[in-house]
C-alpha cells in the first residue's frame, strides 16, 4: 500500500533562509506522529509543505502516491485538513457557520448544504463537544473552545490525514488533556495524525511515532521510544546538561 504522505527529496527555503534540504519522509496510513523541534526548526513549514500550502523549491510531496501539486486543491481538501496555530477572524461568524465551512471542498458553487453535509457538520461538532456552542460567536470563545472548533472544521472536511500545528498551545492542562484525548479518538477512527507538539511527556505517552527536527536541518523519524532520548532532545533543543531538562521531562 502506498504511504499516505511522502516527502521525496524536498528542498525548501524562505528567500535565502533554507529550511529543508533534500529531506525525505514517509508516513503510513493510520499512524499517529508527533512533530517535535525547537522554535524555528521548521515544524510549521513541514506541516504546510505536507498540506500542499507551500511549494517545495525542489522535490515532490505525494499524497497516497499522487503529486500534491498536480492535484486539484479541492480534492486535497477532502483528504487533508490542516489546523493552524492561530485562526484570526475579522467578522462575527458563529461556531456553526465556521464548522460548515469545513464542507467547502464538497460544495458546488451555489448549492447549499445537503443532508449529508449537515450530518457531517453535526457529527464534527458532536465529536469535538462544541454542539452547545453552535450559536456563539467564534471570536468570543475561550482558547480551549476555539481549539475544539478548529478541530471541528477539520473533521467536517472528513479528512484521512489531519495536520495539527501545536493544538494544545496556550491551553490549561485540563483542556490539553481533552485535546489529546480527542486526537487519540480520531486516530482510532482511522484518521492519520501528524501533530506539532511541545509537551514531550504528551509525546511520550500518546504518540507511538515521532519526527524530530534538529536546528541543523537534520531529521529523524521513527518510534518515539527509540528516538526520544536525552541526547537527542539536548541536541534538538540545544540544551547543555541534564539539570535544566530533568525538570521538564520524566525519563
Amino acid at each position, binding site marked *: 500500500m502506498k504511504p499516505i504522505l511522502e516527502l521525496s527529496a524536498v528542498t525548501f527555503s524562505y528567500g535565502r533562509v533554507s529550511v529543508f534540504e533534500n529531506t525525505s519522509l514517509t508516513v503510513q496510513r493510520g499512524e499517529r506522529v508527533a512533530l517535535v523541534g525547537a522554535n524555528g526548526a521548521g515544524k510549521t513549514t513541514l506541516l504546510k509543505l505536507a498540506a500542499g500550502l507551500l511549494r517545495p523549491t525542489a522535490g515532490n510531496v505525494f499524497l497516497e502516491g499522487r503529486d500534491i501539486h498536480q492535484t486539484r486543491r479541492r480534492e486535497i481538501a477532502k483528504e487533508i485538513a490542516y489546523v493552524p496555530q492561530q485562526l484570526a477572524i*475579522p467578522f462575527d461568524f458563529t461556531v456553526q457557520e465556521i464548522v460548515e465551512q469545513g464542507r*467547502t471542498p464538497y460544495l458546488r458553487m451555489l448549492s447549499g448544504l445537503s443532508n449529508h453535509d449537515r450530518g457531517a457538520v453535526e457529527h464534527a461538532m458532536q465529536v469535538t463537544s462544541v454542539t452547545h456552542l453552535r450559536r456563539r460567536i467564534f471570536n468570543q470563545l475561550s482558547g480551549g473552545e476555539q481549539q475544539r472548533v478548529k478541530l471541528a472544521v477539520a473533521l467536517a472536511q472528513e479528512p484521512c490525514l489531519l495536520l495539527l500545528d501545536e493544538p494544545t498551545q496556550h491551553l490549561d492542562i485540563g483542556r490539553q488533556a481533552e485535546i489529546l484525548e480527542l486526537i487519540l479518538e480520531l486516530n482510532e477512527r482511522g484518521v492519520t495524525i501528524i501533530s506539532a507538539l511541545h509537551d514531550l511527556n504528551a509525546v511520550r505517552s500518546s504518540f507511538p511515532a515521532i519526527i524530530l527536527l534538529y536546528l541543523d536541518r537534520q531529521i529523524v523519524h521513527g518510534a518515539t521510544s527509540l528516538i526520544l532520548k536525552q541526547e537527542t532532545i539536548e541536541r534538538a533543543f540545544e540544551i547543555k546538561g541534564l539539570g535544566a531538562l530533568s525538570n521538564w521531562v520524566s525519563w
Partner: protein
Amino acid sequence: MEVGQQKEWASKANAGNRPRLSRFLLVIAGLAVLLMIAILAGTTVGAVPVKVRSVVSVLFHLGSFGHRSWTAADEAIIFQIRLPRVIASALVGGALSAAGVLFQGLFRNPLADPYVIGSQGGAALGASVAILVLPHFSILGFSATASLAFVGSLLTMAVVYWLARVGGRTPIVTLLLAGFALSTILSYSTTFFMYLNPQSELATRMLITWMHGAISISEWPQIAIISVLVTIGVILSLPLARALNALSLGEEYAEQLGVRVEFARMAVITVGSLLTAAAVSLGGLIGFVGLIVPHFCRLLQGPDHLRLLPTAALSGAIFLILADTLARTVIAPAELPVGILTAFIGGPAFLFLLRRNKQEQYLA
C-alpha cells in the same frame, strides 16, 4: 459509508438550519417592500410635488377605459426627471454596497470600501478630463464624465492589480498599498489639472460637485446599460460568496479548505471593480455607502456573504434613494451633492455602530 450512519446524520442535520433561512427570506422580502416604498416616495417628493396616486397610475398605466387620471406634466416629471434619478440612485447604492461587501470580505477588513484599490483617483481624473476638455461629448446617453469616470475607475484597478502581482500571487497588503499610492497620485493629478485650467469656474464647480457625489438626471439608455452591468455584477458576486467566507478565515486557511485563492481574488476584484465603475459613472464619488451599508447588513444578517450580498444590494439601493431624495429637497430648488448627505447620515451612524460594538465587546 454505512447506511445506518447516513440516516443518523440526516436526522441530526435539520437542527438549527431552518430558522436562519426563514429569517433571511423575511429580511429580503421586507427590504424588497421597503425598496418599492422608497421608489414611490422618491418619485413623489421633490420641488414640484406629485400625487402618489398619479405616480402609481403612470407607472402601471392604470386608468379607467383609456381615461387618464394624471396630467401630461405629471407624466413628464415622473418619466423624464424623477424616476430615472430614483432608479439611478438605487443602482448606485446597490452597486456600491455590494462592492463594499466584496472588498471588505477580500481584505478581511470591515473598513475597506469600494474605492479601496484606487478607483477613486482614476475616476476623478477621468471625470476631470471630461468636464474640462470634452464637456459636450456624449455617447449612448453617457456623458463624457460618465464614460471617462467608468474607464478611469476600471483602468486604475487593473493597473493596481498588475502592479501588486508578484510571481503569480497578489499579496493583499501590496494590493492595498499600490491602490492607495496610485489613487493619491491620480487625485493630485486631478487637482493639478484643475490648476492648469483656471479659466472655467463653472467646470471646476461641476467637478467638485461630481467628486462629492452627484446623481444627475440620467437618460434611459444609460440607466438600461448600467442596470444590466449592476445586475450582472450582483449575480456574478453570488458564486463568490463561499470563497469570500473561506477567505474571511485567512488566505492560507481558505486554500486548505480547497479554495483556489488567486482565482477567487481575481474574480472578486473584477466583479467589485465592475460594480464600482458602474456606480461611479452614474453618481460620481459617493462616500460612506459602500462602507456603512455592509456593516449595517452584517448586524442584520450575520457575516455569511451569500446572505450579505443580496441584503446589502437592496439596503444600499434604499439608503441612496432616501439620501438622494433628501439631497434634492433639503435646500430646494437648489441641490446638495448626495455625498454630503451620505457622509452626514452615514458618518454618525457608523460612529454609533462602532461604539455599540465596542461596548458589546467589553461587556462580552
